[in-house]
């Protein structure tokens, strides 16, 4: 099924997962720079004062335009399960770069979520054939 998609679709999908991962990790890093005792207002103010937050927003916008470009070239039911790989990449990179901890139970849970996304994507009927 996937063989008829051009290389730029695959590049777009790789970029989508990478940007999704980068957005979540930089968002978490931004929030982590604010004191854990901060009130909601102090948290929002603290986040808005960090340059990293604006980098996160820039990546978020890049992600949006990249996703629209991917959707214009491929079926939603094909691309959605692939981008669900970001559930794995975000968790793996948060362990690697942010030193978070994931239990075996949580890993199994992420696998079940991937299976669920796969089933849901199989029922999509709204996208036109390319």
């Amino acid at each position: 099924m996937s063989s008829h998609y051009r290389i730029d679709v695959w590049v777009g999908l790789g970029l989508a997962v990478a940007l999704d991962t980068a957005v979540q990790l930089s968002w978490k890093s931004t929030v982590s720079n604010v004191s854990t005792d901060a009130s909601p207002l102090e948290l929002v103010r603290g986040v808005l004062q960090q340059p990293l937050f604006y980098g996160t927003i820039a990546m978020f916008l890049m992600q949006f335009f990249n996703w629209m470009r991917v959707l214009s070239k491929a079926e939603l039911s094909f691309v959605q399960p692939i981008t669900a790989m970001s559930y794995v990449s975000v968790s793996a990179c948060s362990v690697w770069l942010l030193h978070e901890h994931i239990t075996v139970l949580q890993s199994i849970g992420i696998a079940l979520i991937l299976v669920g996304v796969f089933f849901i994507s199989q029922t999509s009927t709204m996208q036109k054939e390319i």
Partner: protein
Amino acid sequence: MATKALGLIFVLAAVIAEAFGQLSLKMGATSGGINRWVAAGIGLYTLEIVLWTFALHEIDVSIAFPMSALCFVAVAVLSHFYLKENVTSKRWLGIVFIILGTCMVGSG
């Protein structure tokens, strides 16, 4: 433990805000042009950004992000009841897997 529970509540609130945001944009898109539904959708997405920031302040992103898949569940339920869209048995099966998975991620 209370911090984690608070974080999970913020994740659920962000998911609900995004689901209603998508519902609003869908209703706005079918109405045509920029209208109150589109404005509501943009407002709800802004609210989601704030709620997600609060969630990440309380819990690890390795827990919060996989749980955001609950949005698939919320959108399916809202689409079924508000837009009268057909949700197939295969989609309900996917929803069950996502709910099971998020419960395991949240409790792990």
